[in-house]
């Protein structure tokens, strides 16, 4: 379906695993560690403004860009998230309905879906393209397709990062809950000399019989995240896998990638 592209950088943040290397080595932080993301890609002012999810995005973007040796000033960043800053929205609703307090302008401005991508562009002084998208459990596939569209039209490299905060339990009483997760890949045109893998995003279909690459062995809380597919992709590339990998865990429309390891 899509054009073959190279993956040249990876980033990952899971509470307990602050980066992709820690996950690959199964080097989990001690249970008493605060396990909070640092927001490495942000400057000090915008790190304070960013939500926990925003900071996790910042960590993944910094890690993936460093690995791919691309710069933050010119490289487009696509942020995918299913529910975005829903916790900020809940905070606003609580203030509005429960406490009947005036709304905080500071919270309101970072409650928009593109808060993280906006803060990143400010921190990295990137005056070019950036976007934020959402497609529920298909967000990883959508983020990759948006990136592939950019590459096909002449962009040299693009960061695709997917993240969601822990599910808002009060709103999702009947649905599976998930924990915060963020994962990123840097895509470049096929044949990039520093490729870790090549991939194509294939048409979606519900049957999963052709999937040959196993998803990551995440704890259930991460596996339920709408962004689990992007973390599975990072994990599969780290393991040097080739084959067909699902970009969702059965809750989406069934997008998959065909992966060729370059390691």
């Amino acid at each position, binding site marked *: 379906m*899509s*054009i073959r592209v190279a993956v040249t950088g990876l980033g990952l943040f899971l509470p307990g695993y602050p980066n992709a290397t820690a996950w690959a080595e199964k080097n989990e932080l001690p249970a008493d560690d605060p396990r909070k993301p640092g927001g490495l890609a942000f400057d000090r002012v*915008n790190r304070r*403004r960013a939500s926990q999810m925003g900071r996790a995005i910042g960590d993944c973007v910094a890690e993936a860009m460093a690995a791919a040796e691309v710069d933050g000033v010119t490289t487009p960043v696509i942020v995918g998230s*299913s*529910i*975005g800053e829903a916790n900020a*929205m*809940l905070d*606003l*609703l*609580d203030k*509005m*309905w429960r406490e009947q307090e*005036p*709304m*905080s*302008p500071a919270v*309101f*401005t*970072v409650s*928009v*879906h*593109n*808060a993280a*991508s*906006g*803060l990143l*562009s*400010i921190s*990295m*002084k*990137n*005056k*070019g*393209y*950036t*976007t*934020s*998208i*959402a*497609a*529920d*459990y*298909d*967000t990883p*596939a*959508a983020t990759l*397709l*948006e990136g*592939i*569209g*950019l590459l*096909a*039209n002449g962009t040299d490299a693009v960061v695709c990062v997917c993240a969601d905060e822990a599910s*808002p339990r009060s*709103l*999702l*009483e009947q*649905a599976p809950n998930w924990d915060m997760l963020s994962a990123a890949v840097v895509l470049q045109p096929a044949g990039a000399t520093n490729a870790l893998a090549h991939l194509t995003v294939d048409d979606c279909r519900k049957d999963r019989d052709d999937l040959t690459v196993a998803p990551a062995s995440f704890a259930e809380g991460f596996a339920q995240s709408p962004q689990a597919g992007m973390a599975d992709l990072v994990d599969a590339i780290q393991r040097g896998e080739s084959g067909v990998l699902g970009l969702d865990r059965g809750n989406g429309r069934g997008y998959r990638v065909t992966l060729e390891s370059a390691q």
Partner: protein
Amino acid sequence: MRPLLVTGYSMLSALGMGRQQHLDALKNGKTGLGPSPIPLDFDTATGAVRVDLPELPTHMEAWSTRLARMAAALLAEIDEPLRRAREKWRPERIAILLGTSTAGAETTEVAYKDYVEGGKFPRDYDFQRQHTFGAVLTVVRELTGCTGPSWMASTACTSSGKTFATAQRMIEADIIDAAIVGGLDTLCTMTLQGFNSLQALDRVACRPFRKTRSGISIGEGGAFALVERKGDARVLIEGIGETSDAYHISAPHPEGLGAQAAMRDALAAAGKKPENIDHVNAHGTGTTLNDTAEANAIKLVLGTDVPCVSTKAYTGHTLGAAAALEMAFSSCAIEEGFLPPAIGDGEIDPKIDVCIPTELTTGTFNRVLSNSFAFGGNNVSLLVSAP
């Protein structure tokens, strides 16, 4: 860039539903702004949609929100070109690329109020089917039978503008042949309270580029467009500029540097010069900062003679829908040969050094730049052209 063919488009706003109601209001300088239908403890005008929205089919009842019903109304208006597109392209090659800022926040805030007051959500409230960005995508897929890639862009007030750029790239990359693009947003208390907290709301109907302007009027509505690889284009998207201010999360760059770059990029993508532009549909929110920065940017990129109108004085600022709605108004200017008068109380700000026509202007308009700027310093400029 290769131009994007727009083969159909639809509009829904405080001015009404469909082409004729919008043309009547725009030609006659008749605003749709009025009192807020949402109870508030402060004064502001809003652009509320007052037309009856269609019900969803019975089997889609769980998805039935105001936003989803707006989507159904907008789809009905492009039914004919969409039918032709479905005959021409396979369903998996027709994408659904929409933009929204608030998604289902209007539904959630009502449900959450019940939760706060009574300890539980309404029985029929369903976060995943009524709130998430994907909920409306499901509705549009179901109503159209289009099964291509589908996602929501959510970059606040540029959201629906981004969808044209994505569609253009994906057609060019041969991932799709056609797409339903555009965007939609509904009024909600949280948005109104939020902009009020920023002291960004005008107490009366907004007055873009006027000396006495003092803020935004929030509106609701949407616009969808069908874009295709080939077909009978009503208008073209000849150039697109997408930039970031990299300056401030909620304030525009004072000199409009990001806005200038977006307009220049749109011109460059189309291979056109400033003198080729006949009209600007300005972002023109009515805030002091935005209008000053944008006027400065327009002056530096296009000069002072190009007529600029902000149609937000008619519809209010429809947030994630604004870029698509204003692309539709730009298309009307080209197809119908008129520019709506810039309306709003008070005299034009003498410090706004661009041409703001306050009377209906008729003539031939071949190329219109439509600007949209957003929280996060996100900027999109669409160059809409006659085919």
